[in-house]
């Protein structure tokens, strides 16, 4: 007996993600999935963001293989944080995010950040119900990241290039990085930023506010 399934392997995840996206849509919460290598500065970017959001209310879901170190850093900034430990898995999936969101009062939020497990590969393929994927890269990683990991650059709404205060000290061809990123995804906004020194943070926060306003006006 031959049984035709024709079932998309990621469909179960995508259905959960769509449901979560609808719920966030009804609540008017903008959800941002941050994806980047370990050490690119995702948590530092979030710390800076939380300091500069003005009156906006944000919460963070932190994905890591182990430890609650990142959630503790977020809580020190006064924002609610939920730590998810994937115990070996290289990415978050929609189910993990939905479970974690149970701990949060979504109706009282403007922004929900999800910091994915540090990895440029697998997280690109998993829909977490977010409105926007943002890739966080840093100048210390080298300028060839778009060429080596095209999938995430193809799917991201924005790229935050972090640690630009170190540009004078590293071999990083900024023009090449921007050109390659633009070839893969002409619609992606590239923002230069230093989470350490705060440069570029106002532009990044403005971008988030614009996206939130766009979502709520739809």
């Amino acid at each position, binding site marked *: *007996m031959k049984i035709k399934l024709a*079932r998309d392997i990621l469909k179960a995840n995508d259905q959960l993600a769509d449901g979560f996206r609808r719920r966030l849509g009804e609540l008017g919460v903008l959800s941002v999935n941050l994806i980047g290598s370990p050490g690119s500065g995702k948590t530092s970017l979030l710390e800076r963001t939380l300091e500069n959001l003005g009156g906006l209310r944000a919460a963070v879901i932190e994905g890591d293989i182990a430890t609650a170190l990142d959630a503790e850093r977020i809580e020190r900034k006064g924002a609610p944080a939920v730590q998810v430990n994937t115990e070996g898995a290289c990415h978050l999936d929609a189910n993990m995010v939905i479970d974690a969101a149970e701990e949060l009062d979504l109706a009282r939020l403007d922004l929900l950040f999800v910091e994915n497990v540090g990895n440029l590969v697998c997280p*690109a393929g998993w829909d977490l119900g977010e409105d926007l994927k943002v890739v966080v890269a840093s100048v210390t990683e080298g300028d060839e990241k778009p*060429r080596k990991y095209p999938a995430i650059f193809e799917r991201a709404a924005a790229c935050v290039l972090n640690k630009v205060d170190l540009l004078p000290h590293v071999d990083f061809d900024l023009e090449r990085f921007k050109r390659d990123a633009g*070839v893969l995804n*002409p619609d992606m906004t590239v923002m230069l930023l230093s989470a350490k020194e705060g440069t570029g943070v106002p532009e990044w926060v403005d971008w988030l506010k614009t996206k939130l306003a766009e979502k709520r006006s739809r």
Partner: protein
Amino acid sequence: MDQILRAIRESAAAEGVTRVKTVALVVGRRSGALPDALRFAFEVLTAGGEAGDGDADGSGDGSAADETARLFRGARLIIEEPPVRARCRRCGLEYGEDDGDAATNWAFLCPRCGAGAPEFISGRELRVEFYEGE
């Protein structure tokens, strides 16, 4: 692979299938999944389940792993790998991975007009097509 086998297990239970003989997947060459890794996972997850064994993971609990091993004992995995086909958003050309200079064309640019970010027509599939059993 665990998700694939779970989907088939659910379907098999509904269809009254007790023994799966073939599993057919479609894994596009730009899906991000590796056929070799899938073959290896299939082998590992369906190992055991010998007649009278019934305890594939040695847990003695008749767990899902035991059930999977029994259902898939000796099953064959077929993987179809559709090539990448893209359509240029600027000039409309349809092209494949062997058109243009595949070795250096990391961004899969249009071989006619050079535009990037094409629409992918095929090559991103990742699905269970069918299974055969009795």
